[in-house]
Each structure stands twice: as C-alpha cells, then as structure tokens.
C-alpha cells in the first residue's frame, strides 16, 4: 500500500493507495501512529483508491480510532468503494466510524 499524508490546515489527510490487509497494516500503523504521536488531532482516511480491506486492516483502523479518541481527536473515513463499504456493513463498523461520502465532506470541520 502506498500512503501519502497531506496537511490541510489542522486536518491530516491520509491517502491510501492499495489494499489495507495483513501485508500493509505494519506500514499503515507506523505512519498513522506517528501522526498521532506528533499531535495530529483530526485524521481523514482517503480510501478512494483502496479496493480491499481484510480483518487485520479493520483491526488496524479500530486501534487507530481508539488511539485518536484517547487523544480527544477525530477520525473519519472517506470515499469507500462498494466492496469496502460492504465489509464495513457486514462487520457493523459503519456504526463505529464516521464514514463520509467524499473528502470534501470529511474535511468539513465542526463550527467552533
């Protein structure tokens, strides 16, 4: 998986290119944990180019959600393809995560 991080004001957009699975979770965790350790409070996962997720990928996302919540931060996921959306729904994780239609919606910050 190719991961690029884009800063958009206070928002860190994590662009994920490729599948989030047992093979890529290591690098995914390293990068996203690093963002939180460096103070990122608002993370948006851009999954537009992520065609597949397995249970280990789901686990990594859940761990990330837990970490950012502990830091009083926000995690959103955006642009899920149909297959990934199906996996989220089967595992009911569409209830745990804030799932946004697209990046624009995900980057809308709540009014102060």
């Amino acid at each position, binding site marked *: 998986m190719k991961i690029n991080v884009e800063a958009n004001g206070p928002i860190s957009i994590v662009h994920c290119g490729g599948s989030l699975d*047992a093979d890529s979770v290591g690098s995914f965790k390293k990068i996203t944990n690093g963002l939180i350790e460096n103070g990122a409070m608002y993370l948006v996962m851009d999954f537009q180019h992520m065609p597949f997720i*397995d249970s280990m990928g*789901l686990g990594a996302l*859940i761990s990330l959600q837990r970490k950012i919540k502990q830091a009083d931060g926000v995690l959103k996921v955006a642009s899920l393809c149909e297959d990934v959306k199906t996996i989220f729904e089967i595992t009911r994780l569409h209830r745990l995560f804030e799932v946004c239609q697209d990046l624009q919606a995900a980057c809308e910050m709540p009014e102060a």
Partner: protein
Amino acid sequence: MPLFQESLTIYSDTGYLEMLRAWIQDIARKLGDEKFPQNAILGITTSLIEAVNNAIFHAHKGKVASPVIIHLKVEEDYILLDVVDQGAGFALEERSLPQDEQSSGRGVFLIQHFMHEIESITEDHQHTLRMKYHL
C-alpha cells in the same frame, strides 16, 4: 469433470495476498459472469484472504517456509475453495461478531458470512479449511 480447477502453493508470507486477489479476479474474468458471478468475487476473495491469514499467523505462527496450498474448483452450481496448512486446525463454532471496539476476531466471522458451507478437516498432519459457495 469440474468447469475449472487450479491449485497454488505459496509460502507463509503476506506478500502473496495481492497476487491471490489478482488470481481470483483473473479466474472470474476468464470464466465469465455465468460461471463465476461478479457478486461472488468479494466473498470468495475475502474468504481466501482470511483463510490464508489464519494459516500464516495461527497455523504456521508466521514461519515463512511453511507452505500454504490452495485449491479452487468451479462446478456448475458451486465454487469450492480449500486452504491447506500444516497446523492443528481449529474449532468451527458459530462466531459472533466481536464488540465494535475489539480490534481482532472478524476473520472467521467474515468467512462464515460469505461461504455457505465450511469444514475444518485435520488428517496426516495437515489441516484443510474447506469452503463452499453455492451459485
């Protein structure tokens, strides 16, 4: 005589996962929607990946040199997927979905969701997870 059958042997290395997904896509494309429906691809792919992950991490404890053998057979009314490892196997009781915040335990649940029949067969120091998808 099956419509199609093919076998692969891989090492216990997650680097093969992408190749396995492409393998399923390729077979589905070759056979066409009538023999390998588009709506079966996600279920077959997910079940294969989850079964291989189980073999790599649980059966082989990450020992890369341990082989994982995969058999895929397409018949008129079902697709059969066998994933063979050298582990002791595991009990196939009905898995409920873990609590939302739990980060593990969804792999077998996903296989049970997608596949219509599942068998765990252990013999001759080999374990086969046999998964059948009715067409």
